[in-house]
């Protein structure tokens, strides 16, 4: 009876959590600038939360360094289903200029399947809003396939 309302709500109010695994902070600044009054993402219901247990969409930036690899796996395991992993920038996709370094543990593909990837170094905030709109549709499909 409430199924349709719950499915519609997944489209209208997704909550984000931002995870930085050793990036140069360029992509992090672009993520925070999506919340500012110029590109206001809150009109579509997005909200940055403080705890991974409250989130639906996880934004990952940075190449996975060896110090942050265990923390990444533990944090991703704490997010309740249904969830969507979005990689922002070219560092998580394939470790950009840090290829083959002694402290970089490889692209994000080795640990978790990526749903949406937004390329750019750093990507423009409008491209981030495009990627988030695609992530919302995938989230709704995952919720429909859950029960």
């Amino acid at each position, binding site marked *: 009876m409430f199924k349709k309302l719950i499915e519609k709500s997944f489209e209208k109010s997704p909550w984000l959590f931002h995870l930085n695994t050793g990036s140069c902070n360029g992509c992090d600044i672009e993520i925070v600038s999506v919340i500012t*009054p*110029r*590109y*206001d993402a809150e*009109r579509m219901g997005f909200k940055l939360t403080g705890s991974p247990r409250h989130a639906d969409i996880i934004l990952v930036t940075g190449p996975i360094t060896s110090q942050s690899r265990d923390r990444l796996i533990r944090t991703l395991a704490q997010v309740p289903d249904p969830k969507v992993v979005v990689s922002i920038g*070219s560092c998580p*996709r*394939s*470790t*950009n*200029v840090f*290829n083959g370094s002694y402290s970089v543990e490889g692209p994000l593909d080795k640990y978790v399947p990526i*749903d*949406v*990837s*937004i*390329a*750019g*170094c750093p*990507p*423009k905030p*409008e*491209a*981030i*809003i*495009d*990627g988030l*709109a*695609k992530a919302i549709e*995938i989230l709704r499909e995952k919720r429909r396939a859950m029960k």
Partner: protein
Amino acid sequence: MKFPYLKEAIKSVFKKPSTEIYPIVNKEAPEGYRGKINYYPEKCVNCGMCIRVCAPGCITRTIEKTEEGDKITFNFYQGQCTFCSLCADFCPRGAIELTKNYHLAVTDEKDLLVSGTFIKKLPPKPPVQPQQQVQNQQNQGAAKTE
């Protein structure tokens, strides 16, 4: 107890908000923006300068030998690109161009690959002469200059 910005906050309620409604109103990138790569294979001469200069090493090429010449394919992987445009600056023929297209949010990895193929014909070979004719030509040339 001071409350700064109180007057500005109350005045902003009645003014128009300064948000750009992005998906409904399209936005164009400014001049000189370095976005997605455009590759023109008809201008390329296979010198390999872009591969030498690329910092993350995202350009690869494959060569196939066919009967007309060499079939050369260049692959630019946008998932590793830093958009520094050194490849466009160093290319001697201007075969690489960075456009103003910033829509790079994809769900499938294969959309991030820009590639182009061209066939490089080898220059025509000169006809092969037997040894005696070459000697006769050289003797004739030496007799004329004398």
